[in-house]
C-alpha cells in the first residue's frame, strides 16, 4: 500500500498538533493549574478541550505556534498570570508535538524515497538477471554443440586409429598369405608339367611303343617325379592349411565393433593376437608365451583383442634386429594380470607420463595416430581394469594390463 506522505514542512493547525495526545490527562492538569474549569479553542472558535459551554465573561490567553496564533485558552477565573503560564505550557507541548511530527513525516518521506529507489534498482537487477539467464542458456547450448563436435571428432579419430591398426595388420597378413600362396602356385605349375609328362607316357603305352616309352621315362626322370609329386602336393596342402589358419585368426578381428559381451578365456585371445603378429616378426624376433591358468571372464573380446594387438605391435616396432617379445598371464589378488614385455629400445622417462595422452606420438607424422595407447587405456578402463607401464631405455618395456575377475 502506498500512502501519499504528508509533506513534513506543512502548516499545522491546533487539532493536528493535539492529535494523539493524552487529552484527558492534559485536561486534568490544566484544570488543576487553572483551579477550575477551562476551554481550549481554535482561532475559529472550535472546542478542543475543556468545558463545552462558553464562559459568560472569560479570560483569554493566546496559544501561539510558529509566529501564529492557533487558538486560545479560556478560563472563568481572573488569574491572568496563571492563565498565561498554562498557555505557555501548552505552547511548549505543541512545539514538541510539531517537532515530532516533522521528524516523523520527513522520515516517512525519505523512507518512501529510498523504497522507490530500491524498487527501481530491483527492477534493473531483475532485468539484468533475465539477460544473464538468456546469455547462460545460449552459452550452455553453445557448449553442448562444441561437446558434440568434439565427440564426433573423437569418434572419427578412434575409428581412424582402429583402421590404422587394421591396415598394419592387413599388411602383415598379406605378406603372410602371399608366402604359402607363392609356393602353392609354384608347386601347382610343376604338377601341371608332371601331368603333361604322364599324358605323353600314357599315349606311348597305349600305342605299345615300349622303346619310346622307356626313352621318355628316363628322359623325364619319372622315378624322381613320382616321389616329388607326392611331396609337392603334401607341401601345398600344408600351405593351404596355413592360409586357412590365418584367415580363421583374422575372423577374430572382424568383430572389433561387436558390442555383445562374451565369456572367454583371455589366453585364447592372447594366443590369437600372437598368431596374427607372429608372421610379421618371425624373421627378427622370438615370441615367448608363458600363459598361466585364467578364469573365464565376461568381456568384449574384440575390443581386448585390439588392446593386445596394439601392445604387441608397439613391442614389435621397438625391437632391434634380433629381439624377444614375452607374453605372460596369471591371476594376482583377484585380478587377471597380463604382461607384454619386449627387450626393445625402451621409452625415455620424460615420455612415460604422456604415452597414454591422446595424440602423443614419437613416430613420424603420418605413421601413427597417437591414439593407440589411449584406445588401449580406454578399453581396459571400460572393463574396470587398469594399465601400467615400466620401461628402461635400451633395456625394454613392459606393459601390464590388470582386469578384474568376475
Amino acid at each position, binding site marked *: 500500500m502506498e500512502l501519499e506522505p504528508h509533506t513534513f514542512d506543512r*502548516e499545522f493547525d491546533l487539532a493536528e498538533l493535539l492529535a494523539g495526545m493524552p487529552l484527558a490527562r492534559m485536561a486534568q492538569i490544566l484544570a488543576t493549574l487553572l483551579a477550575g474549569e477551562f476551554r481550549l479553542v481554535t482561532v475559529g472558535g472550535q472546542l478542543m478541550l475543556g468545558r463545552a459551554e462558553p464562559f459568560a465573561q472569560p479570560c483569554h490567553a493566546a496559544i501561539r505556534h510558529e*509566529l501564529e496564533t492557533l487558538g486560545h485558552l479560556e478560563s472563568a477565573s481572573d488569574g491572568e498570570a496563571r492563565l498565561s503560564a498554562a498557555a505557555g505550557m501548552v505552547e511548549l507541548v505543541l512545539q514538541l508535538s510539531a517537532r515530532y511530527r516533522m521528524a516523523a513525516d520527513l522520515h516517512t518521506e*525519505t523512507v518512501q524515497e529510498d523504497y522507490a529507489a530500491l524498487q527501481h534498482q530491483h527492477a534493473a537487477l531483475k532485468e539484468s538477471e533475465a539477460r544473464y539467464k538468456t546469455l547462460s542458456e545460449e552459452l550452455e547450448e553453445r557448449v553442448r554443440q562444441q561437446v558434440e563436435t568434439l565427440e564426433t571428432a573423437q569418434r572419427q579419430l578412434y575409428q581412424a586409429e582402429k583402421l590404422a591398426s587394421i591396415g598394419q595388420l592387413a599388411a602383415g597378413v598379406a605378406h603372410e598369405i602371399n608366402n604359402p600362396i607363392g609356393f602353392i602356385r609354384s608347386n601347382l605349375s610343376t604338377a601341371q608339367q608332371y601331368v603333361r609328362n604322364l599324358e605323353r607316357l600314357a599315349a606311348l603305352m597305349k600305342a605299345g611303343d615300349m622303346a619310346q616309352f622307356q626313352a621318355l621315362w628316363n628322359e623325364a626322370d619319372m622315378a624322381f617325379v613320382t616321389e616329388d609329386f607326392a611331396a609337392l602336393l603334401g607341401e601345398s596342402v600344408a600351405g593351404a592349411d596355413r592360409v586357412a589358419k590365418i584367415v580363421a585368426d583374422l575372423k577374430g578381428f572382424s568383430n572389433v565393433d561387436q558390442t555383445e559381451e562374451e565369456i572367454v578365456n583371455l589366453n585364447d585371445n592372447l594366443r590369437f593376437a600372437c598368431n596374427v603378429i607372429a608372421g610379421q616378426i618371425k624373421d627378427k624376433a622370438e615370441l615367448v608365451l608363458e600363459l598361466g591358468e585364467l578364469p573365464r571372464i565376461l568381456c568384449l573380446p574384440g575390443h581386448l583383442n585390439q588392446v593386445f594387438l596394439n601392445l604387441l605391435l608397439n613391442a614389435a616396432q621397438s625391437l632391434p634386429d634380433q629381439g624377444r617379445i614375452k607374453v605372460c598371464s596369471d591371476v594376482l589378488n583377484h585380478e587377471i594380470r597380463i604382461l607384454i614385455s619386449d627387450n626393445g629400445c625402451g621409452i625415455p622417462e620424460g615420455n612415460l607420463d604422456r604415452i597414454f595422452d591422446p595424440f602423443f606420438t614419437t613416430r613420424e607424422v603420418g605413421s601413427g595416430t597417437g591414439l593407440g595407447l589411449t584406445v588401449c587405456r580406454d578399453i581396459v578402463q571400460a572393463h574396470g581394469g587398469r594399465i601400467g607401464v615400466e620401461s628402461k631405455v635400451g633395456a625394454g618395456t613392459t606393459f601390464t594390463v590388470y582386469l578384474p575377475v568376475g
Partner: protein
Amino acid sequence: MAEIDEVNRKITLKLVYYGPAQSGKTTNLMRLHDLLAPDLKGEVMTLETQNDRTLFFDLLPLGFRTPSGWLVKLKLFTVPGQVAHDATRKAVLSRADGVVFVADSQRTQSVNNAEAFQNLEENVQRVGLDFASVPLVVQFNKRDLPEAQILSEEEVRARWAQAPWPLVFSSALIGEGVKETFARLLEQVYPVLDKFCALQESHGVDRQSFVAAVTGG
C-alpha cells in the same frame, strides 16, 4: 513553491540553506536569528544533531504583516551536509522557493564544494524545480580563517566568473555577510513571488519593503 492560504490570509515561503558538510549552514541560521528584526521571529528549531552535525534539519520561522493584513511567513531550513543523508537533503529541498549555497572557503574543501553543488543541481531537478530559474545565492563562508588556508576572493571570483548567481563572502561565526547573503536571496525571491501572488498590487509590498520587512531594516 510558495503556498497561499486564502482562509487564514497567509503566504508561506520556503528557503533552504544547502552546502557541503560543516560549511556553516546552521551557524548562518543562528546568526540570522540574532541579527534580523522582523515583525515576527520564531526560535531556531533544531531537529536532531550528532556531534554538532545536523541529521534532519534546522528551522527558523520569520514573518511580517503586509499592509493588506496578510501574514507572509518565511521558513528557513538547513539540510544535513553529509553525503549519506541525500534522501533527507532531497526531501528538505522539495518545494523550495530559494536556495543559499554555503560553500567552505578552505582550499582543502574545493572538491567537497564542487560535489555538493553538483548534488544540489541534481536534487533540484529531481524534486521538479528548474535549476536555471530557482533563486540562488552562493556564499563563501569562513572568511575569518587564516589567509593561507582559504581561497582568496580573487580566486573564487575567477572560478565563478561565468556563473549567473550572486556571490557573497561571509564569516557566519562572527556574523559578517550573513544578513547580506539573506538579503540578496530575498531580492531574487521577490520577483518570482510578486508574479505568483501579486505582492505589490494586492498587498502593497514592493521589493525594497519586502527585504526591509523580513530583515527588519
